[in-house]
Structures are given as structure tokens and as C-alpha cells.
């Protein structure tokens, strides 16, 4: 694991900000351009530190998989935000040509091998990437796979089966559970026996004889260190690790679910709408990882306040341009739905 020098720290801050500003624009699209986004979107706001801290450990050739809550990864990996936004808007110039949409971003050229919209189902796929990485590591430098998923996903059989196999075969995978304490509107302690007992979810690692670590997912450096150590271990052939990264989702699970014709929007967070607990949500806002990290870097003299402002402006301009690009992009021709060369390779 490499030391984080100042440039890298600033890069991390920048990526966190890029994710945040991207997601804000996705969210605002529902207000500013009603009807432009359809279906279901899920935002990464609140998880930026966890995502960036994790991705900062990647080396060339490494790969990752994620869930429907997937915008943040390709943004940080360098996929063009124009292409991501155009995908979310269902446009021809979208990352997946409009075939995939918000839940199904894929950018193999950057190691982002895709997502599953079905809870937990990306975990075994990432484990398969791990086997492939193990084989590639025989002839290349050691490679690692990051598997991202939610706390709720750890109650799917797929989680259990995959972690056992990865540990047994010492696959170079780091399982990063982004624990935001909610499955849609259900709280962890309502659905997880460990959580109900006040235990961290990383104790589940014991069932797979693998290390389990819990980390503050709001601190990108802490995440970097924990995921980095796990990645080093994986590269050394010592097998997988379960990392529980504690985050707070700052938006509702997703936009409202409604049939065509009903204007979509983001409701308030479930802490408020389901449990009437506005204080929980506001405490989370006060601990927002993006301003927190900015303040820390400024305080530590890593980043000057006006440089931070400049970065912020640049990022905002990038994201505004992404929105405009996506709005201007044409829809795919209807008949291209019948591209059977996309059905069968």
C-alpha cells in the first residue's frame, strides 16, 4: 500500500467532490427536467469517502463490481461523466448506449465490470473475477478485485456462498460492504441478527475464516488504509477480507417508485419518512464526509482553501457540462432495441 502524498489526498478530495456534484445533478434533474430520468436511480451521496478510499487502492489490471447504486465508481475511475449522465438520461451517447440505464453502468476499459440490480448477485460475479485475477497473477503482477455491496445484501445467500469460496480458494478479493444501516426503509437492527445484538456486521467474517474489519466509511484515509491492507493481503495470496464500511446515505434509497405518467422525485430520507427521526438525519448531515474531508485537508495545510474552491468550481462546471451534454444527446433509434448482436455475441 502506497503512502498517500498530498497530491493523492487532493485527488481523493476531488473525486469525492466529483461524485457528490454528479449525484446532486442526478437528483436535481428530477426537479429541473421532469421526465428525463425514468425508472429507479440510487445515489452514492454520503458514501463518497468510502468509494474513493477504496478505489484509491487499485492498481492497473484490478477490477471491481458493484450494485445498482453505481454512479460513484465510474465517476472516480475516470469514465466520462457526460457518458454516465447520458446513460442515466437514456441517450444514444450514454455509456451503454441507453440499453442499461442508471442501475447498469459498465466500463470494462477501466476495470468496472458491471453491476447487478438484484441484491447480492454481483458478489459471486466479483468472486469469479477474483478467480480470474488469481490466474492472471500467475503471469502478471498480483491483481485484486473489489466487490461492493450493501449491508442488506449480506443477508442474501449469495454473500455467504461467495465468501466461503473466496476464503477457501484464497481468492484476491476485498469484499466492501457499504453499511448505510438501511435496506430501503428497513433498519439493519430490524433485519440482521448481529446488528440486533449490537455487533458490527464484520463479525460475519468468522463464518468464512477470513478477517473482518469495520471502518468509518466517512473517512477516506481510514478506508484507504483498511482496504489497502486487505488488498495487500490479497495480492500476497493470503485471501479475501470482509470490510464493513460505515456510511450514511444522505438521500432516500431512490426516487419514488411509480408507473409512467407520475412525475418522479426524491422523497426525504427514510429516517424521517418512515421513522420520524429527523435528528438522525441531521446528525448525518453535520458529519457529511465531503466538507469534513475538505476541512481536514485545509486544516492540515494539504489543500489551500482557495484551491479547494477552484477545484469545486471546476467540478461543478464539469457536471453542468455533463448534464447539458446528456440533455443534448439524441435518443437511440427505437429500432436499435432489436440489435440482436447485443443479445448474442
Amino acid at each position, binding site marked *: 500500500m502506497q503512502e498517500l502524498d498530498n497530491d493523492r489526498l487532493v485527488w481523493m478530495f476531488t473525486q469525492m467532490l466529483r461524485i457528490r456534484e454528479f449525484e446532486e445533478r442526478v437528483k436535481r434533474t428530477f426537479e429541473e427536467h421532469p421526465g428525463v*430520468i*425514468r*425508472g*429507479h436511480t440510487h445515489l452514492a451521496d454520503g458514501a463518497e469517502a468510502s468509494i474513493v478510499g477504496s478505489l484509491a487502492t487499485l492498481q492497473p489490471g484490478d477490477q471491481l463490481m458493484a450494485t445498482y447504486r453505481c454512479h460513484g465508481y465510474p465517476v472516480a475511475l475516470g469514465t466520462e461523466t457526460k457518458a454516465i449522465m447520458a*446513460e442515466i438520461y*437514456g*441517450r*444514444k451517447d*450514454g455509456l*451503454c448506449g*441507453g*440499453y*442499461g*440505464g*442508471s*442501475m*447498469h453502468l459498465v466500463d470494462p476499459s477501466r476495470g468496472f465490470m458491471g453491476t*447487478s*440490480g*438484484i*441484491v*447480492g*448477485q454481483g458478489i459471486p460475479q466479483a468472486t469469479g473475477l477474483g478467480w480470474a485475477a488469481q490466474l492472471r497473477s500467475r503471469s502478471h503482477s498480483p491483481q485484486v478485485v473489489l466487490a461492493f455491496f450493501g449491508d*442488506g*445484501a449480506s*443477508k*442474501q*445467500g*449469495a454473500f455467504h456462498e461467495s465468501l466461503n469460496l473466496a476464503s477457501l480458494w484464497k481468492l484476491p478479493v476485498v469484499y466492501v460492504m457499504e453499511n448505510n444501516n438501511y*435496506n*430501503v*426503509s*428497513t*433498519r439493519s437492527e*430490524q*433485519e*440482521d441478527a448481529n446488528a440486533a445484538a449490537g455487533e458490527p456486521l464484520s463479525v460475519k467474517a468468522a463464518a468464512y475464516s477470513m478477517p473482518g474489519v469495520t471502518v468509518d466509511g466517512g473517512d477516506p484515509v481510514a478506508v484507504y488504509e483498511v482496504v489497502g491492507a486487505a488488498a495487500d493481503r490479497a495480492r500476497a495470496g493470503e485471501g479475501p477480507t470482509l470490510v464493513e464500511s460505515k456510511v450514511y446515505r444522505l438521500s432516500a434509497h431512490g426516487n419514488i417508485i*411509480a*408507473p*409512467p*405518467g*407520475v412525475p418522479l422525485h426524491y422523497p426525504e430520507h427514510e429516517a424521517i419518512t*418512515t*421513522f420520524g427521526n429527523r435528528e438522525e438525519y441531521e446528525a448525518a448531515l453535520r458529519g457529511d464526509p465531503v466538507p469534513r474531508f475538505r476541512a481536514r485537508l485545509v486544516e492540515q495545510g494539504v489543500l489551500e482553501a482557495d484551491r479547494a474552491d477552484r477545484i469545486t468550481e471546476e467540478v461543478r462546471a464539469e457536471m453542468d457540462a455533463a448534464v447539458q451534454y446528456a440533455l443534448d444527446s439524441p*435518443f*437511440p*433509434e*427505437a*429500432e*436499435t*432495441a*432489436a440489435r*440482436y448482436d*447485443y*443479445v448474442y455475441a
Partner: protein
Amino acid sequence: MARELPYIAAVQEAIFEEMGRDESVLFYGQDVAPSDDDNFVKAYGRDRVRVSPISETAEIGMAVGLALAGYRPVVELLMAEFMLVAMNQVVNEAPRLRYMSGGQVKVPLVLKAGYGFTAGWAGQHTGSIYGMFMGFPGLKIALPSTPADAKGLMTTAIRDDNPVCYLINYLLVLEHGDVPEGEHAVPFGEATVRRSGSDVTIVATGWTVGRALAAAQTLAGEGIQAEVVDPRTLNPLDTATILSSVEKTGRLVLVDQGTRHGGASAAIAAEVAEHGFGSLKAPIAQVTALDVTVPYSEPMEAFVLPNEEKIAGSVRQVLGEAPVAA
């Protein structure tokens, strides 16, 4: 007495009322009442209403166990695809246990799930996959297309002593319609004729019923009288009503939100090609979704689906065909 209700409210009303009538009815699933401030919880308590983890295999498997123990669980599964992770429980356990036991046990349970959410939900959430449940004797399948049926079929599903896949069409959830107050049960295995006509029979389910009726309206303007039949349940399948309609019209167009080989319309075509062949004056046409995964982008998504124009076009085509020479 009937009043207007949206389809989804009619479903919930049926569950709520059956829970009031029968203590053995339980209701649980993901995001079912995480807060105690919920009508079901307030009326029936946490013994009978629970929120569960994202664990479909356990959720459905538990339903099988509860049913064996004499309860009538209704499991909220949100979307039909989420049953795929637990498909063995759905098709290889619940519907087989009674027969394998030589009639010793029964397995009354309801798997409530949505399907066909072609509203930008993209590749993994939009499947009209009801056809894949049709090959499993013992498993009933209900596909309500109106608010009244949504209530009436749910009532029947809960009272049925067998496992039932009760499939909500997500595109219809906010459709309003008259729904009887109080006890309302629609029998399984009884198709309904949504519109009478003498020239062609259109069979449609769920959301496509509305598309078929719209097409029939257009066709009426051209002097073509289409009869629209809604089977309401795929198992039991009321072939008798379909056959007698085809006997009258001599022509059959099948509409399916699912893919062409996916099951429902193909199974109906096969029944009619065997048992109603003598009535047929033209090929049996299928208007199905294209054989692709549903794409996200709106124009592509629309292109994939059956619609009024495709249905009307298909009807015109089967009517244009010359009667078959012997």
C-alpha cells in the same frame, strides 16, 4: 357496494380483510411495515405482520413451513425477479410437497410480486416472466388486470389451499376502478370476456388487456368486432372460454407482455391449435415482446413492447388471410 380504488389499494384491501376474517393469515416481506405506525401492524400485531431481511429463499421457504403448520402466509416479494433467487422453493418445493406426500399435507401460501415494470426499470426488473411458472403442476398463477379483480383474485389466492403466484402488473398499480366493498372473491380458472365481438378473439393478460381493448376500439371503427378475453389465471387456465370464443370468431390473436417463447401465449396457442383447430380460419398470431432484454431508453423500450398498433395490425392480418383450403 363498489367504490373507486386504485388497483394497488384493492390488493392491500383484500389482504387486510382476509387477515381480519382468518387468524391464520400472516403477511410479511421486505419493507412490509418497518414502522409500528402501520395499519396492518396496528390491526393484527407483530405476530402476524413482520418485516423481513433481503432473504427470499428464507422468506419463501418459511412460507412453505408456515403453510405446512396450518398458516396462510402472504409473502410480499416486490418484484417477480426477486423470486428467481429462491426459485426452487417456488417451483420445486411448494407445489410438489402435497403430491409427494401422497396427499398428506397442503401448502396454502401466496407469493405476491410485481412484474412487467416497463417504465425505465431496465433489464433486470421488467421481466414479464409469468410463463416460467406454468410448467409446475400445483402452482397457481393469478394475473389481475383490473382493481376489482386485483381484490377478488387476492381473496381467492389467500383462501386457496395451494401455493399461488399472485402477480401484480406494475404498470397498473395506480389504475382506478370500481372495487366491491367487503368480501369479494373472483374464482380461479374463469376467464372473463372484457369485450364481445364476432370477428376475432384477442387473448390478453394484465397490462395488455387495456392495450387489446384500445386496439379493439380502433378496429371497431373499421367495422371489425374483436372479442377480448382475459384469462385472469394462467393456472388454472380456462381454455374452455377461449375455445368457445374462437369457435365463434374463427380467429385468434394472442397478446403477451413477455417474450415469444416465454410461455403464456405459446401455451394458449398450443391448446387452441390442438383443441380448437377446426374452428380456426386463419393462423394464430402472437403479439409478444421482442426477444430481447428490455432496454432502458424510452423509445427502445416502447419498440420492444406489444401495443395497440401491433395488436390492431395483427388482427387486420389474420382477417386478411384467406380461409384455409382443406
